């Protein structure tokens, strides 16, 4: 509760008000609700078991596959999502609303439905799938299929914050660059991108974490085979049905990775990546 963010005198200290106390109470209840499952998971496994199971081939292969696929998926999301976010933030065109909804849709779509829809399009009998088949390529049951499912589900988690970041760039700075006859590309890379970098990084963290946790679309679209398509969430699902220790270890690993990803990229000093021009300088 930082008062410094709000300028000017405030009529009452909010922490002591009934409203503030109620809000804090609700927040505490939610925090406990969110925290308890994690504590339960961590309490279930001893460090010795955790370390011993890390060498388990099933754990290692899932870990490796999850790492490779989510790095690929995140890279593709950033590569294809950055232009999309930039255009959505800076251009107006007919049907923009529709495009925005379509881009956001995977966020709320049940992943199983997404996987099924992917099958209908990129499956062997789907329109795009048949075209791929003519080229001798096929996505279902392949690692590329896992990446496709992850990109589909993770893209909006990058595009949304990236778009907000681009939209938040001070228009006057862009105009100033234009008066200095900077091209749009030059302005994008030297002015807009550095200013929007914190939002982009937040988007990278969110989408990477989403890709890492992808389950429903993957198992529906890409299948479930160790070493090829069985990523960590799928391995948890498999282990939950017969080998609880492994399920706990994999879950704790996923938890740690997601936590680290969100925390690390959020806390990353943006200056390390870009020289941030000062607004109004």
């Amino acid at each position: 509760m930082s008062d410094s963010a709000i300028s000017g005198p405030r009529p009452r200290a909010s922490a002591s008000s009934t409203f503030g106390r109620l809000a804090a109470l609700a927040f505490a209840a939610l925090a406990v609700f969110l925290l308890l499952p994690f504590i339960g998971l961590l309490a279930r496994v001893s460090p010795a078991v955790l370390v011993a199971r890390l060498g388990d081939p099933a754990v290692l292969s899932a870990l490796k596959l999850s790492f490779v696929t989510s790095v690929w998926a995140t890279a593709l999301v950033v590569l294809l999502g950055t232009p999309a976010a930039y255009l959505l933030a800076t251009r107006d065109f007919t049907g923009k609303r529709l495009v925005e909804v379509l881009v956001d849709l995977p966020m709320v779509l049940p992943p199983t439905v997404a996987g099924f829809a992917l099958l209908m399009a990129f499956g062997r009998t789907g329109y795009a799938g048949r075209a791929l088949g003519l080229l001798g390529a096929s996505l279902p049951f392949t690692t590329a299929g896992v990446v496709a499912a992850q990109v589909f589900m993770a893209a909006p988690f990058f595009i949304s914050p990236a778009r907000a970041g681009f939209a938040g760039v001070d228009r006057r700075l862009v105009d100033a660059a234009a008066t200095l006859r900077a091209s749009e590309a030059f302005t994008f890379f030297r002015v807009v991108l550095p200013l929007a970098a914190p939002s982009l990084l937040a988007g990278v963290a969110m989408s990477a974490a989403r890709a890492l946790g992808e389950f429903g679309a993957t198992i529906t679209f890409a299948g479930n085979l160790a070493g090829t398509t069985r990523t960590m969430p799928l391995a948890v699902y498999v282990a939950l049905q017969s080998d609880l220790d492994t399920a706990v270890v994999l879950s704790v690993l996923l938890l740690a990775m997601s936590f680290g990803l969100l925390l690390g990229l959020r806390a990353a000093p943006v200056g390390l990546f870009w020289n941030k021009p000062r607004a109004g300088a």
Partner: protein
Amino acid sequence: MKRVRRTGVGRRLGSLAGVLAAPLLLAFTAPRPAASGTPSTRSSTTTVRVFAAASLAEAFGDIAKQYERAHPGTSVQLNLAGSQQLATQIEQGAAADVFASADRRWMSYLEERSRFSGADTVFARNRLVVIVPRTNPARIGRLQDLARPGVKLVLGAEAVPVGQYSREALRNLSRIDGFGADYARRVLANLVSEEENVKSVVGKVQLGEADAGIVYRSDVTPSVSRYVRVLDIPDSANVLATYAIAVVSGAGHRSAAQEFVALVLSPAGQRTLGARGLIPVAAAGRRDSDTP
């Protein structure tokens, strides 16, 4: 002015709380008569929770309806999944009254952990078949074709009853002339996905994504058979799946659960199982007499 707005918000919040609370209240109150020994105010709340192997979906759906007709005021809730998944759920304390497994392995798994009141009973058997999409993209005409490189084969995972039976059948086929001793190994090299229950295997083949899968004969329901072709596995190599049923210890509705098991074992229940493509236990004794 301020007051008016506050009451407006308050009312809205109130109705929102009502909307949120209603399902919660239902969720908390519904199982209560079962948990405590107090007689329920209305007998219509009795629900028998039957955890059944996914392959029993159709047959147990029918039997549940028969049961509800015979026992007004009692409803049957089916939880259908791979037997391994159900066994783990029950082991972890899921509220189940009846467990029906597609193999003995998961039955004894729970037996060893003394999760049953009384012994389990074998109530049906099932035969394995190979299914391919009606379009048959890999042009599979006989079982030998499953070993051809590039065939996309989907099986149940090894922990799933159908997955284990399938691997057993493939090993049996390897011992038959014309298949080759490495038949099972070559077929398993074509495995592209291991599913967590037999219905997922059916789904992957039905969608035309997989070239072939091994499922139970009873899974080839009329709606499925519009999309798939069936290849029989010869009796000499086929594996008969053994279905067993038991009342879970600590069942909330013990007598209702026992009545459900009794119905499954009754002539009427056995007829239903037979009508749905399973092999009733009486008939299973005579191996060759299973006529659909």
